[in-house]
């Protein structure tokens, strides 16, 4: 990806991003000043809003859940040398998959319905990624175009289905009926309550655990299995893969299926966990944030989890900010996110290079 600068792992995964985020906030602070608010108190509100309360934390992690899924999705494809911009569409289809199961099979008990729903979500996401993957592998159709197009197709499909087929008859809202309770992925606060631990309500649900599990699983798959080895080989050197007798076609398709499946899991959080019904645009851009998350996380599951939580903080903290400083609109939050991505994702060299020099005495010579 970028210049080979050697720094200790922890510096790469923690210190550099931290510095970058600080820098981003400094710049964002200027914008806040320009609007005539106090950057410091703004930052405090943002942080307190995101991490200061049980509810805030809940929201932060709830957002992070989506980003972990989409981030992992992008990363897996990336390791295979593919740039999957299709997370948005794949997640949308995941929603469809989840909804179909939750609506059609709602006679099933929760222990069966929820896993089935999740599987179906993943399956649909994967299916939506399959066609671009196959076209890339067999026909060489550039996956960036096809996945962009498939995002559009997915939204068209969803609108059609919700308006003409699956929607609640006689209702204005473009959404399905609410699922049966059995389809609900339990909220963390509900569970906690069962164990007599009262914690404030938030959309944070078990999908977060699923997301973490997926991150761990992806790490194992990528660095501890033959499949992962094959994927990384194809990504790093298609010629070496050919020499080794690893089929590029197979790997491309498999990697994209995994990628699409992960993206599809967003639905488990949004549709089965929080909304309990299928509705338009429920992905609200998670697919694109996933790109930034994956690259900021150096396509490493651990980095991705960190980056996801960072964005969770920005989203939730930003919401609180918009509440407490009415003059700061939701656009401010978008701006800050942009700055963070810029500094932590693209201008990280500003911090990594000096650090690298400090640590290894390398980094000269070019």
């Amino acid at each position: 990806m970028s210049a080979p600068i050697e720094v200790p792992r922890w510096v790469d995964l923690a210190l550099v991003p931290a510095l970058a985020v600080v820098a981003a906030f400094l710049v964002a602070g200027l914008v806040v000043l320009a609007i005539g608010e106090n950057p410091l108190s703004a930052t405090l509100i943002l942080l307190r809003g995101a991490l200061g309360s049980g509810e805030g934390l809940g929201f932060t992690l709830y957002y992070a859940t989506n980003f972990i899924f989409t981030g992992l999705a992008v990363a897996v494809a990336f390791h295979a040398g593919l740039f999957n911009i299709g997370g948005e569409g794949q997640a949308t289809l995941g929603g469809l998959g989840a909804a179909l199961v939750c609506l059609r099979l709602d006679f099933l008990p929760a222990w069966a319905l929820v896993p089935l729903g999740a599987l179906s979500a993943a399956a649909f996401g994967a299916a939506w990624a399959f066609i671009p993957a196959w076209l890339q592998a067999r026909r060489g159709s550039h996956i960036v175009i096809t996945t962009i197009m498939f995002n559009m197709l997915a939204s068209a499909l969803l609108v059609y289905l919700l308006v003409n087929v699956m929607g609640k008859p006689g209702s204005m809202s473009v959404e399905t009926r609410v699922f049966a309770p059995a389809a609900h992925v339990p909220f963390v606060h509900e569970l906690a309550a069962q164990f007599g631990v009262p914690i404030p309500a938030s959309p944070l649900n078990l999908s977060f655990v699923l997301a973490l599990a997926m991150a761990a699983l992806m790490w194992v798959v990528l660095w501890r299995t033959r499949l992962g080895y094959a994927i990384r080989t194809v990504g790093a050197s298609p010629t070496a893969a050919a020499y080794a007798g690893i089929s590029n076609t197979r790997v491309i398709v498999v990697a994209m299926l995994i990628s699409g499946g992960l993206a599809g899991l967003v639905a488990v959080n949004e549709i089965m966990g929080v909304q309990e019904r299928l509705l338009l645009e429920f992905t609200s851009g998670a697919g694109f944030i996933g790109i930034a998350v994956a690259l900021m996380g150096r396509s490493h599951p651990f980095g991705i989890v960190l980056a996801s939580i960072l964005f969770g903080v920005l989203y939730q903290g930003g919401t609180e900010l918009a509440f407490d400083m009415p003059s700061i609109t939701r656009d401010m939050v978008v701006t800050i996110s942009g700055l963070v991505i810029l500094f932590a994702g693209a201008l990280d060299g500003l911090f990594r290079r000096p650090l690298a020099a400090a640590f290894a005495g390398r980094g000269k010579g070019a």
Partner: protein
Amino acid sequence: MDVFGFGIAIFDSGVRLAVPLLFACLAGLWSERSGVVDIGLEGKLLVAAFAAAAASHRFDSAWVGLAAGIAASIAFALVHGFAVISQRGNQIVSGVAINMLAAGLTALVGNAWYGQGGRTPPLEGAMRYQPLTLPGAEQAAAVPVVGRLYAYVVSGHSVLVYVAIAAVVATSFVLARTRFGLRLRAVGENPAAVDTAGISVTGLRYAAVVIAGVLCGMGGAYLSLDQAAAFLPLMTAGKGFIALAALIFAKWRAWPAFWTCLLFGLLDAVAIRLQGVVVPGVGQVPVQAIQALPYALTVILLAGFIGRAIPPRASGTPYVKER
């Protein structure tokens, strides 16, 4: 309206829809031919559209608007350049960041200035580009086919449309026939070769990125000063990404880029007119199906006819001598 006239109308609107794509697509072409991947086209279009609208409204001149749009777009292009050329940052991440920054800042500033959620007031009179009637268009309109083509398709667009086409000619000429073009083509394929030939890789890439800025600037200005005659937040509606697709579709070459964008524009124009058609047997085709048509067709064409598109070899990777 007769079939021919109908065809002309479609073509006319196809051209209008193609122009912003074309600007963005050429911008991407310059940038990526120099080895700098640019998925920030969308963002640059957006800031340009905003700056153009705002300036033109403030100074009551579309030309001032255009200048402002270009300036804003260049500014963002330079941010991208600094990040990926000087700092060797990740080009895709930088692009994503540019897009978000643009989305946020335009709305933020716009709201601060006009208090309408980032919208600018509608642009009137000198604030916007009016369609030009080329000499003799009226008379020509009487002449069948050729005359009408000239009158309705060739004539009757705003300056920027013709600029866009000029840009295609210029791009293909400069790339193919000039020193700068040769060096640019080379640096996108093998920067080390350019470096050892005694040419500054950094300089070339910055130049390319700035050109991309200029082109996006005009594209954005066309959106807000001509097509919509106002700025609305997120009004680019994904054009930057479609342009990216077009670029790959065109395999990073100028004239193919022109045809691809025109094709995309036409597909859109046709789809618009197909809404509500009744297919015998099937009955009325769902709107969504028709809205999806251009995208589906793009995929089919790509898979069917275009085949493998190999980007400039060095694109996406920063230039480092360290191995």
